[in-house]
């Protein structure tokens, strides 16, 4: 009965307002990319119709990376996923929706743009936060989302861990360091955006651990006179990956458009859009052009320090993993 009534009612209500595009893509993404994809979609739609003569419409869904992956697994009809970390797409691949070799199908680990983790502090940096060490001082209140639900938070956690392991030379000491860091966290929001709102709008905390792009955005939105970005000398290279969801795209017959969409990231225009939105571009030419926008930070990768996402996930974030142990203390 539903199936008969709903389209009818829906049709009545939507009559006239729907612009029929030749192809409609659903891009299921994580929290901080709202502005990025608003920009990117506009450019892609124009480029695609110019090249193929076809009109394309792109719908967006944003949320915590983990819960977005969960929705896709539960049947959210995403043609492409653009999530915060490879593990979340691996989880989708684990259910057979995406080919297991998805990360090799596009250049550079299927991560067309990268970012890193920086500190957003209040104007004048009253607590004098310059490096990771300053975070574990007593009286410093740190805002970060929950690593269990937020992709950005996992990057935060791993960045801190990587720093500590490098500095102190052992994983036990790294564990203690990260444990001390999380003792200074008064609020764990479920997503990166929630944490930013907590820090910026609600005035909680001395420092926000954030995606570099998210920190720039907050500064743009609320004014440089209120917040400063502190880039630690050493941080992690965060690679948010993208992939076509094979099962959905094939069923809907949208594979061509979906692939073109993701490939557009690797064009000069795509890279330029990434850089403009404070994501670090991969293209060396564009990177040089935007050199001044990004602080020089020594970056280590997750493969270097943790041996890849699958391993990091299992050791640190799985049930009973190191994060749980830290939190039990």
């Amino acid at each position: 009965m539903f199936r008969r009534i709903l389209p009818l009612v829906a049709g009545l209500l939507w009559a006239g307002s729907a612009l029929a595009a030749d192809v409609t893509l659903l891009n299921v993404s994580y929290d901080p990319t709202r502005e990025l994809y608003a920009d990117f979609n506009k450019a892609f739609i124009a480029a695609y119709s110019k090249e193929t003569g076809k009109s394309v419409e792109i719908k967006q869904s944003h949320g915590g990376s983990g819960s977005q992956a969960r929705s896709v697994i539960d049947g959210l009809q995403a043609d492409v996923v653009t999530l915060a970390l490879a593990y979340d797409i691996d989880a989708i691949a684990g259910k057979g929706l995406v080919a297991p070799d998805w990360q090799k199908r596009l250049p550079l680990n299927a991560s067309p743009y990268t970012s890193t983790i920086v500190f957003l502090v209040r104007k004048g940096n009253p607590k004098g936060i310059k490096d990771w060490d300053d975070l574990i001082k007593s009286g410093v209140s740190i805002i970060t989302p929950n690593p269990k639900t937020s992709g950005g938070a996992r990057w935060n956690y791993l960045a801190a861990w990587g720093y500590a392991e490098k500095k102190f030379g052992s994983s036990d000491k790294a564990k203690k360091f990260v444990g001390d860091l999380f003792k200074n966290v008064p609020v764990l929001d479920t997503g990166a955006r929630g944490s930013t709102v907590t820090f910026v709008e609600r005035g909680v905390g001395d420092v926000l651990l954030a995606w570099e792009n998210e920190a720039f955005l907050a500064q743009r939105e609320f004014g440089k006179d209120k917040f400063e970005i502190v880039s630690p000398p050493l941080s992690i290279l965060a690679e948010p990956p993208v992939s076509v969801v094979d099962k959905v795209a094939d069923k809907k017959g949208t594979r061509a458009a979906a692939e073109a969409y993701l490939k557009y990231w690797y064009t000069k225009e795509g890279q330029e859009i990434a850089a403009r939105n404070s994501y670090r571009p991969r293209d060396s030419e564009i990177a040089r052009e935007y050199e001044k926008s990004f602080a020089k930070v020594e970056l280590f990768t997750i493969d270097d320090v943790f041996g890849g996402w699958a391993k990091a996930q299992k050791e640190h974030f799985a049930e009973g993993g190191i994060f749980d142990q830290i939190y039990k203390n």
Partner: protein
Amino acid sequence: MSIAVARRSSLPGFGLTMGLTLTWLSIIILLPLAGLFLKTFELSLDQFWGIITSRRTLNALKISFGLSFLAALVNLVMGTIIVWALVRYRFPGRRLFDAIVDIPFALPTAVAGVALTQLFAQKGWLGAPLAELGIKVAFTPIGIFIAMVFIGIPFVVRTVQPVLIDLDVEIEEAAASLGANRWHTVFRVILPSLIPALLTGFALAFARAVGEYGSVIFIAGNLPNVSEIAPLLIVIRLSEFRYADATAIAVVMLLASFLIIFAVNRLQRWAQTRIPAH
């Protein structure tokens, strides 16, 4: 259980309406809830027990049930005071305040959530002065408590109000003429006859607060073991792909709400036998 025998009434349509009722009820309520229980049966008892007794789950349940209990207590006291003022006294704006009592019930929970957060955040109208006193409300358990008090107010007021209105005045007068002072009359005569309604209101406010999500998550700090409520933990477990954990917690909460309904049910029976119908 047989639902099928119509004993009284020559009206038509029992079979048809009962059939439709049961069908619709099965599709919308029974099937989904059965699915929830079926899903938990995929777990062994040990696994189920392990999930429920894990520190984080226990703390989330403790926070949800504990704070709901406290909030319902505050509602009980404040609700009684409000009912008393609305029913027994005349003051300017009384009818307006009477209508206002229902706002927490009618206001969508997400709206209540952002509004309370805005109000009690460090820069908020109430949050700023409270912060000067050193009291942090938003993003602490106190914030959760405040949201729960907000949503629970109407339940106590609206269950107790009609009873107080209908309370037989002669008893009060009799007590007074027998020499009882006002204090005695209120606490020995009036309040005892309100007890079933008070308990019902308390239980309803409690039940609502335990399951509440929308108005709480904005203002809660969502810090595991400190300010993470059980419904939020369900959502978090879901986004971690841990369906079993989510359903196990859901089943526990569901059983708790069955119990509360049951308790309220008994309270109502008790009330009926205590107060003869007029």
